[in-house]
């Protein structure tokens, strides 16, 4: 989700404060006045600066805003992220990135709506938009008054973004348990307490958050989840995944599309810098929320500050990092699956096909970590023929990626058993499915019909 706590979130606060000295933009405005550079695009207005990145100081406020929206729209159209028949769920944390993502999705929907009204045949319907906020008070030390205020602000924001009207889902993180028991919150706390490593706790929460998002999306019939991950966030993820030894699975997380989940996840702000997003929020006075979650001593926060420091020294550093990682081979699920449903209008299907990326090169992987769902490297895949009589919790342990084994799962068998007991049903059922070797057996049946070769993973 958005840059909550990942640095660069100082701008805007849910309290009604005047944008004052701590704003990165306050000083820059005086800068631009003194230097009076013209915007390189419209050549009419004074350029503004302070939004970082490669284009800093080249555009005026309006051109900057349309440029940022342009990056978003290009990402959406060139990766077939949103089709007219889709129902899109925006994951909103209240932070600047997801706030801007929400704004842009709304703008796009509004335009589509106008076009729809104006067109004669009305062949392209308007995509639907919903908003989800995951309340993590169960496992994070967020003061209750902050959360109450946040909920109020979120309600206001979402209701202001209409028409078209958007449904808002305010969901507690323990919703991942809701189908299997009533003591979800207690089990969640037990589960999180079993994780001792601070980085492991953060990453565990990230997995659970994704589970919650998936659950809401599938329950309410959404077929896309939009995350506000910006380039700064992704750059930090590249470095932290490297540090955690996840070099194999890293490319899966940093593409525009991640369809390894039941509901595909898309990252339309992948080309926008955090500073640009902060500037946009400030220019348009978009309200954002920063919940205080306490200090963090994790690898994730160390990496974030390291990358932010490098970005200060060189304004293209974050994009260099992401471009480097972009040269690693993505996975087969890093694209929107093609629509095969005949009921979908032809125009929509044609549109989607045109823009969907050609799968010229990708790795297909059919084994995933049971906890974080990252594709497993050959060395991490266990041969089940030797593990016939193991306890469920032990088999679970061995079929997780080495990074989860180290930083999340308890090392000894007894605590592992307890940990396993407290896992949400959806995770356990995924485990059972994997244990049965269902996929493998199915695959063997259709082996002779498969064309692609690059599947040594099986």
């Amino acid at each position: 989700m958005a840059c909550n706590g990942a640095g660069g979130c100082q701008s805007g606060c849910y309290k009604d404060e005047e944008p004052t000295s701590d704003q990165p933009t306050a000083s820059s405005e005086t800068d631009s006045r003194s230097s009076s550079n013209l915007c390189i695009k419209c050549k009419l207005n004074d350029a503004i600066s302070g939004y970082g990145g490669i284009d800093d100081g080249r555009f005026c406020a309006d051109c900057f805003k349309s440029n940022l929206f342009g990056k978003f729209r290009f990402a959406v159209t060139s990766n077939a992220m949103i089709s007219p028949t889709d129902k899109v769920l925006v994951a909103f944390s209240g932070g600047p990135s997801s706030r801007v993502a929400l704004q842009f999705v709304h703008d796009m929907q509004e335009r589509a709506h106008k076009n729809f009204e104006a067109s004669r045949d009305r062949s392209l319907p308007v995509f639907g938009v919903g908003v989800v906020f995951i309340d993590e008070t169960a496992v994070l030390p967020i003061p209750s008054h902050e959360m109450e205020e946040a909920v109020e602000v979120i309600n206001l924001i979402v209701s202001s973004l209409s028409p078209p009207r958007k449904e808002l889902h305010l969901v507690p993180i323990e919703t991942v348990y809701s189908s299997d028991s009533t003591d979800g919150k207690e089990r969640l706390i037990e589960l999180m307490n079993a994780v001792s490593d601070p980085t492991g706790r953060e990453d565990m929460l990230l997995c659970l958050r994704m589970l919650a998002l998936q659950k809401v999306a599938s329950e309410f019939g959404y077929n896309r989840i939009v995350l506000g991950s910006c380039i700064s966030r992704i750059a930090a993820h590249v470095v932290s995944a490297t540090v955690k030894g996840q070099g194999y699975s890293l490319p899966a997380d940093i593409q525009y599309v991640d369809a390894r989940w039941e509901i595909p996840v898309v990252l339309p702000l992948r080309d926008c810098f955090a500073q640009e997003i902060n500037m946009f929020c400030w220019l348009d006075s978009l309200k954002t929320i920063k919940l205080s979650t306490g200090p963090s001593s994790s690898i994730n926060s160390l990496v974030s500050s390291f990358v932010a420091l490098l970005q200060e020294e060189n304004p293209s550093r974050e994009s260099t990092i992401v471009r480097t990682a972009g040269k690693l081979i993505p996975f087969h699920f890093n694209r929107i699956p093609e629509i095969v449903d005949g009921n979908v209008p032809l125009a929509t299907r044609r549109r989607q096909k045109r823009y969907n990326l050609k799968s010229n090169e990708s790795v297909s992987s059919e084994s995933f970590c049971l906890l974080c769902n990252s594709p497993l490297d050959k060395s991490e895949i266990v041969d089940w023929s030797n593990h016939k009589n193991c306890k469920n919790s032990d088999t679970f342990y061995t079929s997780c990626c080495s990074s989860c084994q180290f930083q999340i799962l308890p090392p000894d068998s007894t605590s592992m058993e307890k940990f396993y007991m407290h896992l949400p049903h959806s995770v356990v059922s995924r485990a059972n499915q994997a244990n049965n070797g269902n996929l493998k057996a199915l695959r063997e049946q259709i082996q002779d019909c498969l064309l692609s070769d690059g599947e040594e993973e099986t």
Partner: protein
Amino acid sequence: MEGKRSKVRMCCLCNQSRASLNRPKTLQQICRDCFYLSFENEIHQLIIDNHLFTPGDRVAIGASGGKDSTVLAYVLSKLNRVHNYGLNLFLLSVDEGITGYRDDSLETVHRNQVQFGLPLKVVSYKDLYGWTMDEIVKLIGLKNNCTFCGVFRRQALDRGAAFLKADKLVTGHNADDIAETVLLNILRGDIARLSRCSSIITGEDGPIPRCKPFKYTYEKEIVMYAYFKRLDYFSTECIYSPNAYRGFAREFIKDLERIRPRAILDIIKSGENFRISTNTKMPEQGTCERCGYISSQKWCKACVLLDGLNRGLPKLGIGRSRPGIGCKEENESRGVKSIESKQCGSLDF
């Protein structure tokens, strides 16, 4: 190191002697003997698993007199004796011609030659290129001088190894160095180097393959080993690049190590597991038209730099002269605050 703890802790490996240190890599509390043993065994295992050497090989050890190469020379000669590798080991040093730094460290290498009983060959920039680093710095100043030194050293080592008729060249790059290189190549977008920097053997297509037996050995443990064994090594920074050790990336790795010692190994593991798209343009390997050394360009970097020096145009070959991956890195690493630490590989090759 023997603390005055009220409770005597025993070594968690042998359970016989008192634990006297926290092993940096694993945080196990062990005794000195177990430390030596596991330190050496890990390197032995790595050599065996990766078939680094074959019996009868002539192996040149890049020796600078610094801690890494000194420990490497000591451990390799010990393992060669104990496990009967059947190797002919040599020390190979490069004399860059830096008064007040290299002359002193070369003395250390000369002492090591006697202490370890290994033959030593010294190749000097003056003999190979006609220039010492002192002369180069006098001409070009303290900016970009590390570029000359780094490019020249690479070739000097290969020439020295060829002179010794060596089959392999081993260098003292440790795990921290390799983790740092992996990170730096990500940060600066050098995909070609990223794809090869974490291999244990490099340059197999070149004249002499290079291996890094310390690939998984932590710098801290090397220092510890050298300290306890009272090995004779030289620990002064290069006078032309006194702040080479203050790089962002190095500090970051040290911070990571403090939170999670395993992070260094994990970075190397990530580096090994990166699958780089075959669509990515890689520089093509060829040979230099002038000296025959491997090069992706018409002339190898050393010849370009040397030509510039001899024609009185020392800026030739530095910075923007060559488009592509290599030049970007050089531009970036010359910033006021470098993100890189050992840009000139001051103490070890």
